[in-house]
């Protein structure tokens, strides 16, 4: 049963292919059914494989299905082969499961769009690529998926390409990702040189066998991490993700929250032996993650666009996941990935529902008091917000705490501190979002208000499902406080994530830590309550008090502008300068100049051709005397 896992990615791939070829001719209904069914089928196969996987001994992990040798040249070998192990299983389930829900949601959300087929073909294609990414048994194949999801992200961000901003955002996403990919490719090349293979199994064996020195491991790990930074939107390559919100909301939910952006985390987890071996690299991962988490959270504070708030929140949460991986708690990182997938997609889809209701309005300052108009959306949104804020007994709480505890346990106090600070900020901006949107005065445009309506069931039911999971998903990975056996999630991943020495805290410390983080989360919520419900004037006062800080945050630290001014513009200006001066003037100038010189000599010599017999005789005589002189002397 288990060896059918390799068809998991193929189903959506096939579906996508069909939609690409016949898409324009098929009815919308059929398209939606096929697209959803394909993902659902994948999900079913994933579940079957998952069950099958649990029944075979750990020693047999990972299951590998070798389809055919893909590239083979000299020493370079890359096969088209899939693998299935617990980590893959988790990812596959998340991708297909959440993916399926979002597909269903999209039926309603995209109902009126004329490029319906294109949307679903891209969504299917994305699922396919993402599955390749998580299931590929070697780095090159992973890279295929890696790039494939990047492509789909590009296509879907730019889905409404008539909009300048959308087209721009898509391009930006792709190019920024490519910067990371360049590092990733180098990482692959280094691995090839030092390991002689790109198969994960071989890499792990090489690391286990001590064939790789620590410094090389650090180098490779960092190069691969560059790729992860690009894909998972960490500092300094996060800039594409906020812009990516130009895409349709289901896309934001699926790609830019639940799945694609977590590819980096997956990769780091997949290569955990390497990072563990290196140590330094792991620390850097943790640090980058922590800084990103905090930094992104600060930017989320002042944004008015719902989706942008969520985008920064995603960046921030991804930072958490990297903290987890960086401090050696790979399982915790993946656990957060898994819970995050539910609540963040829930948040996005709910935001989409709000948008849907408000005819596409995204600005929170133009909302308020929507609670009564959106009775089904509001509760689920709230659940999502609570989950992400780290309020106990919802999924986010468990995963976040697992990470923070590990960080603390590992002695990474700076990272831990940043994480805690982020918790406050997260709770604050999430509830700022909730309060501004659903509570307080109505600040709606009259025109918008006229069309105000709750979303159809095809959209709300997926929301409810996601809300359910946002609540319960965390219970598969209870912290140690509740007993060692109860961390099912961690156990399940153990065969993949071979943690050699996990620092353990004693129970009381852990309890304290948990309580502390719960406290700060609640503090954040309370702060938001004060700011936006109780004393709505506070934000304005603060802004008036710290205008520079506000501006800095509001403009996202001017990072885009700085990048533009320090990298993009100099490159373009410099290229133009070189083109004008070197290509046109030096090279072409040399060419045309030599042609001109030749012509000049032609002119010079023809000057002697006066047409006068005397001059001809003169040259003749000169020739004679030179010739005789040459011969005689």
């Amino acid at each position, binding site marked *: 049963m288990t060896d059918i896992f390799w068809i998991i990615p193929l189903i959506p791939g096939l579906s996508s292919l069909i939609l690409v070829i016949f898409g324009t001719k098929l009815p919308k209904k059929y398209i939606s059914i096929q697209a959803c069914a394909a993902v659902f089928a994948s999900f079913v196969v994933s579940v079957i494989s998952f069950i099958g996987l649990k029944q075979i001994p750990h020693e047999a992990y990972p299951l590998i299905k070798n389809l055919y040798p893909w590239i083979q040249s000299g020493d370079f070998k890359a096969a088209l082969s899939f693998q299935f192990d617990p980590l893959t299983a988790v990812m596959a389930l998340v991708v297909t499961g959440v993916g399926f829900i979002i597909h269903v949601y999209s039926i309603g959300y995209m109902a009126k769009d004329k490029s319906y087929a294109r949307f679903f073909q891209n969504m299917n294609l994305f699922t396919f690529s993402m599955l390749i990414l998580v299931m590929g048994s070697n780095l090159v194949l992973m890279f295929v998926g890696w790039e494939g999801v990047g492509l789909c992200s590009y296509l879907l961000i730019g889905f409404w390409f008539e909009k300048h901003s959308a087209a721009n955002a898509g391009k930006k996403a792709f190019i920024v990702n490519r910067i990371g990919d360049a590092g990733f490719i180098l990482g692959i090349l280094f691995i090839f040189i030092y390991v002689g293979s790109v198969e994960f199994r071989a890499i792990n064996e090489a690391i286990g066998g001590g064939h790789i020195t620590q410094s090389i491991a650090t180098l490779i790990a960092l190069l691969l991490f560059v790729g992860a930074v690009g894909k998972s939107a960490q500092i300094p390559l996060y800039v594409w993700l906020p812009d990516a919100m130009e895409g349709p909301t289901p896309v934001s939910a699926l790609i830019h929250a639940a799945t694609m952006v977590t590819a980096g985390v997956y990769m780091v987890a997949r290569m955990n032996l390497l990072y563990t071996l290196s140590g330094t690299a792991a620390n850097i991962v943790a640090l980058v993650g922590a800084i990103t988490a905090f930094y992104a959270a600060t930017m989320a504070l002042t944004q008015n666009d719902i989706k942008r708030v969520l985008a920064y929140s995603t960046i921030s949460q991804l930072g958490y996941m990297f903290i987890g991986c960086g401090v050696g708690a790979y399982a915790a990182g993946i656990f957060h990935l898994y819970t995050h997938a539910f609540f963040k997609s829930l948040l996005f889809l709910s935001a989409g529902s709000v948008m849907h209701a408000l005819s596409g309005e995204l600005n929170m300052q133009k909302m308020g008091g929507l609670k009564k108009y959106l009775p089904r959306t509001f509760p689920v949104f709230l659940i999502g917000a609570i989950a992400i804020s780290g309020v106990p007994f919802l999924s986010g709480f468990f995963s976040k705490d697992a990470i923070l505890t590990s960080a603390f346990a590992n002695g990474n106090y700076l990272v831990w501190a940043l994480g805690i600070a982020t918790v406050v900020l997260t709770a604050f901006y999430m509830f700022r979002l909730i309060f501004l949107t659903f509570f307080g005065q109505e600040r709606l445009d009259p025109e918008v208000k006229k069309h105000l309506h709750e979303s159809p069931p095809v959209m709300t039911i997926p929301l409810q499902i996601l809300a359910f999971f946002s609540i319960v998903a965390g219970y598969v990975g209870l912290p140690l406080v509740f007993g060692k056996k109860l961390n099912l999630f961690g156990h399940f991943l153990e065969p993949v994530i071979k943690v050699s020495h996990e620092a353990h805290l004693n129970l009381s410390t852990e309890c304290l830590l948990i309580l502390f983080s719960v406290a700060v989360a609640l503090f954040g919520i309370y702060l938001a309550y004060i700011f936006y419900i109780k004393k709505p004037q506070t934000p304005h006062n603060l802004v008036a008090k710290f205008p520079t800080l506000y501006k800095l945050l509001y403009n996202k630290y001017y990072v885009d502008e700085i990048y533009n001014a320090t990298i993009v513009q100099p490159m373009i200006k410099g290229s133009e300068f070189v083109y004008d001066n070197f290509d046109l003037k030096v090279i072409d100038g040399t060419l045309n100049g030599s042609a001109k010189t030749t012509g000049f000599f032609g002119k010079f010599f*023809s000057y002697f*051709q*006066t*047409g*006068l*017999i*005397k001059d001809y*005789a*003169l040259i003749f*005589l000169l020739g004679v005397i030179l010739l005789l002189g040459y011969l005689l002397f």
Partner: protein
Amino acid sequence: MVPTSYFIILSAILFVLGAFAFFVKRDLITQFLCIEVMLSAANLAFIAFAKSASSLDGQIIVIFIITVAAAEAAVGLAIILLVYRQKKTIKSEDMNLMKG
């Protein structure tokens, strides 16, 4: 007896004078005459060499050269006449329709 070398020197002088004159004279006929001078200088050289070698070959060659000179004169003068008829001038500077 006069040494042959004197004749040779004279022939060289005459030859160079002819070439010099070709260069400084500006009418076609005289320039042509200069060529005749040069040919005559060569004749003189031939005969002098013939004498120094005591052979008659040089003299025979001179006969041929004189014939050539005659033929050249016929054709050359005809050409000069032709040009004169068209341009009414025999200044060598005026022959500059084509150049460059």
